[in-house]
């Protein structure tokens, strides 16, 4: 009886929400404005709150509903390493990987949290939730990169080190051109401190769909021609698709890195704890499941939502036999919907998919792509790099320089540190940027020490995007539309207004 009443209320509120936004819709274009997720139902997940992590949960986001699926069923979180504050700063993994934000954390949530706690939440821990630990932590200005762009400080050792801790001889020197955060020149935390660190600022990647990030489709890494290296513990190869700079090769390495840096824990996890943590993370799937305009993303033959991800084959290469985003192919001929707005939206998504697959443009000066034997330029489509079925990641390890962090293509970002990297004459210069490179984040090069890797960032999972703005590793795209605008500008694609809207709508349903 009570369940029925709740269900009716939920249906009613859903219908009411749809009616409320109806006047905002541009039905003819199949579009609608993105907007911040509505304020507040108490979705914030506190560490050690001992709640049950439901096998499936739905959360309202900027364009509809994001769903989080745990294929292992409900999880009792009491004492669970993902949900427990394991270090002294009060943070748990869940602090920055919130279910309501598609297992990342959006800037709107961060702002809300600042207001609600006056900055006292462990989310704002000085170590990386502020621009620099040496700044006065009670001031919002000291957390400006987190509050404005959703960026956490990532302190990488300099010179770089291998995952085993061995020093890597870098092919380039690094200077701080300017740093409004002060951290790279800070006597305790900076590049010239007793423990030299390069502080870059990045968005947290979602803890979801990780089977897709950790599996590999082919044993060769085409960007360097070598077979993928083998994990001696398991005999399996490293996928190369974890984290923006691939500093961790496995979920275990990622967990240890996060434990000691973000959680500031001194002790490691026991083997059973690690197994429990990685097992949990590996069973989470995240995707949009409903759109405010388009309706259910598994209606009319579509296969949106996390269930199709959970049952899909990871690391499968898209191609003529299995093109990108077949999940929504049924919407090409949607005759089921009687709602003109819904039909228009679904048609727009279908056009967006066609553009994603087939609209070719000249890809230029992008290390990781043009530096292979494809040539510079090479003509191809979005699906060339976003080639993994169901997630849009790169089946090959996806470290690519799109230009989001490197001059001259990066959007102006005076609030971020700017570094000058000079490639030594004894090594090959960067193939497109020469020997002197200005960058806000050297990316993969902070792991490998190689010039050619400067500014390369691992291609991200494209599912559940609407729940976790802003986008790109440095938060430079505030909205889904901004992503499209960046690509259009970067590669001179020449998209029309309608095409931009179609691609934005595609991103919103993934």
């Amino acid at each position: 009886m009570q369940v029925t009443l709740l269900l009716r209320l939920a249906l009613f509120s859903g219908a009411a929400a749809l009616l409320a936004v109806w006047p905002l819709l541009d039905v003819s274009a199949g579009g609608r404005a993105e907007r911040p997720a509505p304020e507040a139902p108490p979705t914030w997940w506190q560490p050690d709150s001992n709640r049950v992590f439901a096998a499936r949960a739905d959360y309202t986001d900027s364009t509809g509903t994001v769903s989080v699926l745990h294929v292992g069923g409900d999880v009792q979180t009491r004492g669970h390493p993902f949900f427990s504050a394991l270090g002294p700063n009060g943070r748990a993994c869940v602090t920055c990987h919130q279910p309501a934000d598609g297992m990342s954390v959006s800037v709107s949530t961060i702002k809300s949290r600042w207001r609600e706690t006056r900055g006292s939440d462990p989310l704002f821990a000085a170590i990386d939730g502020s621009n620099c630990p040496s700044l006065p932590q009670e001031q919002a200005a000291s957390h400006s990169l987190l509050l404005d762009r959703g960026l956490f400080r990532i302190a990488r050792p300099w010179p770089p080190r291998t995952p085993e801790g061995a020093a890597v001889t870098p092919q380039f020197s690094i200077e701080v051109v300017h740093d409004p955060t002060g951290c790279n020149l800070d006597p305790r935390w900076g590049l010239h401190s007793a423990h030299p660190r390069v502080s870059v600022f990045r968005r947290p990647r979602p803890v979801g769909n990780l089977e897709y990030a950790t599996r590999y489709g082919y044993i060769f890494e085409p960007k360097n021609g070598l077979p993928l290296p083998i994990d001696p513990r398991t005999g399996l190869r490293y996928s190369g698709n974890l984290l923006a700079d691939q500093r961790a090769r496995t979920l275990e390495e990622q967990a240890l890195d996060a434990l000691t840096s973000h959680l500031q824990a001194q002790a490691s996890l026991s083997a059973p704890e690690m197994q429990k943590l990685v097992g949990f993370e590996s069973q989470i799937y995240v995707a949009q499941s409903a759109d405010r305009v388009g309706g259910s993303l598994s209606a009319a033959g579509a296969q949106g939502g996390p269930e199709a991800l959970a049952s899909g084959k990871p690391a499968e290469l898209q191609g003529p036999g299995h093109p990108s985003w077949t999940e929504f192919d049924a919407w090409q001929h949607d005759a089921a919907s009687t709602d003109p707005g819904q039909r228009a939206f679904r048609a727009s998504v279908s056009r967006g998919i066609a553009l994603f697959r087939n609209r070719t443009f000249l890809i230029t000066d992008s290390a990781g792509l043009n530096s292979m034997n494809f040539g510079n330029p090479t003509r191809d489509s979005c699906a060339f790099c976003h080639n993994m079925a169901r997630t849009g990641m790169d089946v090959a390890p996806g470290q690519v320089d799109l230009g989001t962090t490197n001059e001259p293509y990066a959007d102006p970002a005076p609030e971020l540190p700017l570094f000058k990297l000079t490639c030594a004459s004894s090594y090959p210069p960067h193939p497109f940027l020469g020997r002197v490179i200005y960058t806000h984040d050297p990316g993969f090069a902070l792991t490998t020490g190689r010039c050619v890797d400067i500014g390369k960032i691992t291609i991200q999972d494209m599912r559940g995007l609407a729940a976790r703005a802003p986008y790109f590793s440095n938060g430079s795209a505030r909205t889904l539309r901004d992503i499209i605008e960046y690509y259009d500008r970067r590669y001179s694609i020449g998209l029309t207004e309608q095409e931009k809207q179609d691609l934005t709508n595609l991103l919103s349903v993934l």
Partner: protein
Amino acid sequence: MNARRAGALWILAGTFASSAWGATTEKVFVTCPVYRDTNAGRKSGCWLATDEAVGIRYDISLSRTKPQRGHEVLVEARLPSTSSASAASSAQSPCGGLTLEPVVVSVLDSLCPSFMLPAESYPGRRFRLDPRLVLGTADVPETLPPGPYPPRTWHIEFAYQSDFLQYQYSEVILDEIGRYVRASHPRRVEVTGYAVTQAREVSGHRLAEQASLAQARADMVALALERLGASEAIVKVSARENPEPLSADGELLEPSRRRVDIHLSY
């Protein structure tokens, strides 16, 4: 013919390069490549290269390594026979240049103006992936070659001044060697890298590889083989300079000197 004598002959061959190694006519020149933006789908653009010495514009798109706009390229190719050249004139070619095949392009460090031409009604070529270059996915159980396993040698070629294992081309060879190693358990895997350090003049450029490149190439292949199952204990790596070319049919001779030989013995 020993390597030293062969190298000397090659220098004599010079820019016009009627090959010293055989009867076929090989073309070698350095130039600034031009990209023609034809649009016949993905990877359909054309690469053109004019040999300034004779004023002929060639279509070098069929090289497995494509040029980088703004960098000079070394072009090594077999010239079409006179009759086929006239039949397939530049005007009739899909890209607007005399098609070279086989052709090997090496991207040089030296910079040059970055040129791009519009399609100008040239259709370009639709991209077709050679199925021989496609490896199976990692989740497919592998098929090991059946015995017997006599000693075998493979070759992997490289672009000029490069130790980069080229996408698809190298993978297919390495994959085959890896399966052979796992099936046959050789006593020794000899990996011999070569660099062509003899200088030659091409289009006014003095071309000679660094001796260290031989070791770098061999190290890269050895690392690949170890990741494919060859125990480090049985892999023997060595480096040499200025080998004789391979003489297999269809091979370009000079590019075949920039290679690594992999020999399995029992």
